[in-house]
């Protein structure tokens, strides 16, 4: 479904601020893979997701989704394939617009907008159904401005927006990190439900090792712009946080106290 081949990304190349963010990174996802991504601060996790989403171009390498080479495709054209939820609950919605208007935009993801009226009866009923499944009472607040919602409600809505038109690939960048633990757990459970239901191919970055182990069928760990650990299936199921730390230290070739802290 997704093939990332040997991508490199360096920020501010040729200046004193030069920062190598991705080094010869390759990743292949089968349809329906639900991959959790972990790694310390600055490991390149967000850069990998942003490169796939087209936020900035990669320096070299190739990105293919569903058979289409999108390496040079601009961000807005990749939206046809990709649904995204960001760390910042403000990022995924238009705060000044109604819930229904946000959903209407999301339901057209990847289509060129036309001069048809943006809202209609049929979609309205569909949105109500979808919101009911979130179980947050939002179906009664379709005309409320999204800016009035709590962070958790906004993330749940953004998740619905990212998936209401089934994407080929779902990218989640620490989408529960800004939420309190209880809300985060709810949004994660919702994520799993949607991903399972629609069999979505998913990359989910998290800073929480237990979440990384609990969710998904595959786990990758990044360090210094590379993927160091990649485990799937039964091997992942039986993994403990201790195993993970050991694998990480072995692969990285040294003991990384700061990263150990960050990962635990």
């Amino acid at each position, binding site marked *: 479904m997704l093939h990332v081949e040997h991508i490199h990304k360096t920020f501010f190349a040729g200046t004193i601020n030069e920062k190598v963010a991705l080094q010869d990174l390759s990743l292949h996802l089968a349809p329906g893979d639900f991959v959790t991504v972990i790694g310390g601060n600055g490991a390149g996790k967000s850069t990998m997701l942003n490169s796939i989403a087209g936020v900035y171009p990669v320096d070299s390498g190739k990105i293919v989704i569903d058979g289409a080479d999108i390496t040079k495709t601009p961000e807005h054209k990749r939206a046809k394939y990709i649904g995204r939820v960001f760390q910042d609950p403000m990022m995924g919605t238009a705060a000044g617009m109604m819930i229904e208007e946000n959903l209407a935009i999301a339901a057209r993801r990847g289509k060129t907008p036309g001069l048809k009226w943006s809202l209609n009866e049929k979609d309205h009923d569909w949105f109500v159904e979808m919101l009911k499944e979130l179980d947050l009472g939002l179906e009664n607040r379709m005309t409320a401005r999204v800016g009035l919602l709590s962070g958790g409600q906004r993330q749940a809505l953004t998740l619905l*927006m990212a998936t209401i038109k089934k994407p080929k690939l779902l990218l989640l960048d620490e989408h529960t990190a800004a939420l309190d633990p209880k809300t985060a757990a709810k949004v994660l459970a919702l994520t799993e439900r949607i991903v399972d239901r629609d069999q979505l191919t998913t990359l989910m970055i998290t800073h929480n090792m237990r979440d990384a182990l609990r969710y998904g069928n595959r786990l990758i760990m990044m360090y210094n712009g590379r993927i160091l650990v990649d485990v799937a299936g039964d091997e992942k199921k039986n993994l403990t946080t201790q195993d993970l730390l050991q694998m990480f230290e072995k692969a990285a070739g040294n003991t990384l106290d700061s990263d150990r802290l960050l990962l635990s």
Partner: protein
Amino acid sequence: MIDILMPTIAQGLLWAIMALGVYITFRVLDIADLTVEGSFPLGAAVAASMLSEGYSVAVAFICAAIAGMLAGVATGLLHTKLKIPALLAGILTMIALYSVNLRVMGKANLSLLRIDTIFTEMQAWFNLDNVYTVLSVGAIAALLSGLFIYWFFGTEIGAAIRATGFNQQMIRAQGVDTRVTIILGLLISNALVALSGALIAQNNGFADVGMGTGTIVIGLASVIIGEVLFCTRSFKNCIVSVILGSVVYRIVIAAVLQMGMPPNDLKLFTALLVAFALSLPLVKDKVGARKAVK
């Protein structure tokens, strides 16, 4: 009193078209677009030139609108393609338009004396007196502009433009090219501003290359007065409140002039009014914070 009130309301309605244009950039797109200082006299210049060349009123309006669109696109391209900050892009277009406007008119001031305008034609048709002609033209123009904006921003494209103003990252992630939506928003805004310029020129009986000075501030004053006095939250109400804001602004100006303020101080007064209105949210915050402390 009525003698002054009716013409004042009529002026407010003619200028409301411009204020609606400013609303689209300032509030919908979240850009302070100074192009309007050039596209307002551009609309006036184009309409006045066409009319004095003998073209019909309809053709004059259409050409004024197209000229305004082009001005908006110019700013849009400077901003989106060349990555020039929006404020600066608008200033560049505004300065360039000064020369363009002189070229269009061939001189600094073009009189429409004894030339048929929308107002003389309406007067002939409906046999109204001067004041009520201006009032009805203004009302119809404001109504049509308001309806157009309400319709357009309710469409898929319109919704995408509004979302661009709130959150570019979000709407790009939904597959919309924000360069296109920004250019479209500037295009519609400046078309309205140019139409307003065309109306004002015909009402004044002349177009002048300097008539754009202060347009942005008048537009902002109207938008903000409308918001403070009338705006509840729906988009429809916001459109109506901008139109009413423009009318109230004219009434305030007429009132202070009546009270003896020298006309030369008008722009200073307007600037202070807008500065005050723009600082209202801050003042409210401060007052709120002080209350919370107590």
